[in-house]
């Protein structure tokens, strides 16, 4: 088996095979929190934490898990780490935990984590798997942070809760409602795909 270099994994997960705009994975729960940069940041950090540690665990246990029950075992491993995140958030950031509501628990069903565990950690060593988890989380993070900053800036006139836009700016209420998340992600996909197509044509 030929090993992939860490820099290649980084490039793949952040751009060429980005979990959000190439694989369209895991957009479910986190789209809901992108109307606020702080929440998005904490959610994506939590996702990176869970993805990396799940990958390590799956990679270490891969020879011990019978193939037939591996899905449920993987789900349990993910759930274990999500519980840790949930307890930490409750203890140290009770307000954020409250405003995120059920979405922390929904990291369990985020397809990126299960997808990476299944596609990468099953076949690779723990160190590389850890790196893969971190980078796919980063690939997820930068896309969502962009969407969140547009939504928060235009919707509330703030970034990370700090007022940025002048007082006379009319807030676009639509930006903090559900439809704008779809529009922005759709537009984002459009831009990225056009860039990719152009690059492909240039080659």
């Amino acid at each position, binding site marked *: 088996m030929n090993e992939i270099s860490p820099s290649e994994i980084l490039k793949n997960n952040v751009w060429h095979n980005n979990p959000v705009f190439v694989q369209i994975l895991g957009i479910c729960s986190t789209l809901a929190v992108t109307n606020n940069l702080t929440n998005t940041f904490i959610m994506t950090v939590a996702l990176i934490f869970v993805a990396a540690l799940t990958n390590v665990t799956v990679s270490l246990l891969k020879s011990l898990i019978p193939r037939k029950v591996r899905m449920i075992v993987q*789900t349990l491993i993910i759930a274990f780490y999500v519980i840790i995140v949930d307890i930490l958030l409750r203890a140290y950031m009770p307000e954020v935990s409250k405003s995120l509501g059920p979405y922390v628990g929904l990291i369990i069903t985020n397809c990126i984590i299960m997808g990476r565990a299944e596609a990468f950690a099953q076949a690779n060593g723990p160190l590389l798997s850890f790196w893969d988890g971190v980078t796919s989380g980063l690939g997820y993070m930068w896309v969502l942070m962009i969407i969140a900053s547009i939504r928060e800036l235009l919707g509330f006139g703030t970034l990370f809760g700090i007022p940025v836009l002048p007082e006379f700016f009319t807030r676009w209420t639509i930006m903090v409602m559900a439809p704008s998340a779809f529009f922005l992600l759709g537009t984002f996909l459009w831009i990225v795909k*056009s860039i990719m197509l152009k690059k492909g044509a240039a080659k």
Partner: protein
Amino acid sequence: MTPDINPFILLFASIFTSNILLANFLGMCSFISISKDIKSSNGLGMAVTVVLTLTAVINWAILNYLLIPMNLLYLRYIVFIIVIAATVQILEMVIDRVSPGLYMSLGIFLPLITVNCAILGVALFIEIRNYNLIQTLFYSFGSGLGWWLAIMALAAIQKKLQKSPVPAGLEGPGITLITIGFMAMAFVGFSGMLNVQ
């Protein structure tokens, strides 16, 4: 502290004003990948509605009669996901035995439901909002119907889209997401009628 909401209002709200998919973004993954075909969308919508209602009620019972009395609330994520996986597995076997025709048409969709965030999401919403049994029943059933309605509507729109010229960069998931955005806007229009948290 069960909120005082009429179950029928809850049913209406969960279908339209706070549609689980268009307002809460749950169940997007399978929604985007399956919605190209009306028949599959119908099968998946039906399966989601059944599993959602069943697991929500089971999870509600476990939460209120087992986890809360025994002070094991922190275990709820694991318990919920096990209940969902087990229900899907049992349902798969039962349908296979009772109606092979339905099994053939649902077959591939049932395992997908385990990782559908809408199922777990509804269970968690019910926990946070302290619904009682009747409210749980109406809310989960309504959420399932709402999801089914949304995926059928999107599948129908997608059918038209296949014949329309779309910019190359926007093809595929891009245009699907923008379409969902328009649908979400239409559903937001209902929200002036009633607001249920």
